Structure formats: structure tokens, C-alpha cells
């Protein structure tokens, strides 16, 4: 057993460590910002092309955004390394792998003209996966993630109700619910560090 003064000393030490390390909980939020913006750009460009508001070759912007996000993830992964992986990073990467695989399969199916999922199928699946990861984080007591998840689910509902505006709805959902969540997390990390 320990006495009161030792207990006080132990608690003070735990407080110091928790205070110092709590900012790490927000590490990984930049993935959400980058992928949120890239996904929003992709959905928006495809919708603008479908609505003939921009030339067809503008789809290249969507691809560039996707490639930029992939390159960022590779660079970020290498710079951080495998030594320390935070909760946000782990959840993000797990869902990213699954969502990328499923989206790729859907994309290939659509490419061959099967049209099973509709023209906005890959983007919908991507948003659905994004809402799962954000809501999973919310389950661990993160209210900001809860709001982000609700926004993403709402964007999916709107996209489903108004298919002709699906790209705009999904784009807004990714921008507000996913990138927005990442930005708020980064701001929270800044506050913790300060």
C-alpha cells in the first residue's frame, strides 16, 4: 500500500503525463482534411461535368486531387513512420484501405458499363465509409466526430433523395463532415499544445 503523500505524487505524475500526451490524440486529423477536400473536389468535378457546366477534360482535376491525397498519405506515413500510431490514424487507415478497395471494385464495374450502382456509386460508397470512420471515432466520446458523421449521413440521404444533385450533396458532406472534422481536430490539437 502507499500513503497519502505518495498517492498525491503518483496522481500528479499521471496528470502531467496525460496533459502532455493528450495533444497526440488529435494527430492524424490532417488525413481527414486532405482526403475530405480531395473527395469533395472529385464528387464536385464529376457532377459539374455531368451537368455540362465544365468541359469533360476537367475530370483531370478530380484525378489530380485524388493523386495528391494519395501522395500526401504516402509522404505523411513515411515521415511519421510506424513507431507511433494514434487512434485517429489507425481508424482512418483501416477504413481507408477497405473503402479504397470497395470503391475501386465499384469503379471498375462501372467502367465496364454494368451501371449497378449508378453513376455516383463510388462516391456514395466512399462517403458511406467516411461516415462509418467518423461515427466510430464519435463512439469513443468525440462530439466533433459525431457532428461530422451526422453531416456525412445527411449528405448521403440528400444524394439519395435528389440523384441529379448527388455530386453536390456528397461533395458538401465530405467538405463539412470530413475535412471540417479534421480542421476542428487540428484546432483542438493547437489549443492542447498551447
Amino acid at each position, binding site marked *: 500500500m502507499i500513503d497519502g503523500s505518495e498517492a498525491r505524487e503518483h496522481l500528479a505524475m499521471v496528470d502531467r503525463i496525460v496533459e502532455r500526451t493528450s495533444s497526440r490524440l488529435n494527430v492524424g486529423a490532417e488525413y481527414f482534411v486532405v482526403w475530405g477536400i480531395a473527395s469533395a473536389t472529385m464528387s464536385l468535378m464529376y457532377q459539374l461535368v455531368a451537368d455540362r457546366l465544365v468541359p469533360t477534360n476537367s475530370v483531370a482535376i478530380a484525378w489530380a486531387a485524388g493523386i495528391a491525397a494519395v501522395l500526401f498519405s504516402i509522404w505523411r506515413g513515411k515521415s511519421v*513512420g510506424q513507431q*507511433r500510431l*494514434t487512434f485517429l490514424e489507425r481508424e482512418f487507415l483501416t477504413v481507408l484501405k477497405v473503402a479504397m478497395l470497395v470503391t475501386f471494385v465499384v469503379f471498375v464495374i462501372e467502367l465496364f458499363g454494368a451501371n449497378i450502382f449508378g453513376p455516383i456509386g463510388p462516391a456514395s460508397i466512399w462517403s458511406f465509409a467516411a461516415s462509418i470512420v467518423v461515427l466510430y471515432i464519435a463512439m469513443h466520446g468525440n462530439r466533433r466526430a459525431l457532428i461530422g458523421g451526422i453531416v456525412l449521413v445527411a449528405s448521403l440521404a440528400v444524394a439519395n433523395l435528389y440523384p441529379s444533385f448527388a455530386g453536390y450533396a456528397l461533395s458538401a458532406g465530405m467538405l463539412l463532415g470530413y475535412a471540417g472534422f479534421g480542421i476542428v481536430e487540428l484546432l483542438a490539437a493547437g489549443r492542447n499544445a498551447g
Partner: protein
Amino acid sequence: MDDLLLSKIRLAVVAELLASEWASFSELQKSVGATNGNLSSHLGKLVESGYVEEEKLFLDRRPHSRYRLTSLGRERMIAHVRSLQLLLEKEPQS
């Protein structure tokens, strides 16, 4: 009170891991400030008791160990901190 967490080094290790998914041996050593052998021994006890999970991997062809807190470790840590707080509450004010 949790006997295993009465050690200051083990308590510090578990507190460090609370906010991390994984932390390497060198990171823990840096933050806890224990010697190599001392930290190994404490980590061994935490791993053996199921409070901490150990993973051995190769990074740049060099062996590395990384650690993370298990659900059991997290539960025991919370209970331990609560019992420390209770001890202080019961203590007569000086």
C-alpha cells in the same frame, strides 16, 4: 488499489500509453526516463499481466518493439487512479 500500478515506472508507462495507439520502446524510455534493463523488466510485467500488448517488428532492417495499452490495462488504470483519488479524499485535511 492495483499492486502492479503501485510502481511509479509502470504507472508512468501506462499513463504514456493512454493517449497513444502504439509507442516504441525508445519513446517510452525517453518519456519515462528509466534505464534499458529497468524499463524492459517493468514492461515485461505489464505484458505478462495483459495490461500492455507488445509487438516486435523490423524497421529499416532493425528490430523494434512497440507497445500499446490493452482494454484490461485501460480499465485497471482508471480503477487505480480512482482508488488513489479516494485515498486522498479519505485522508484528513492538513
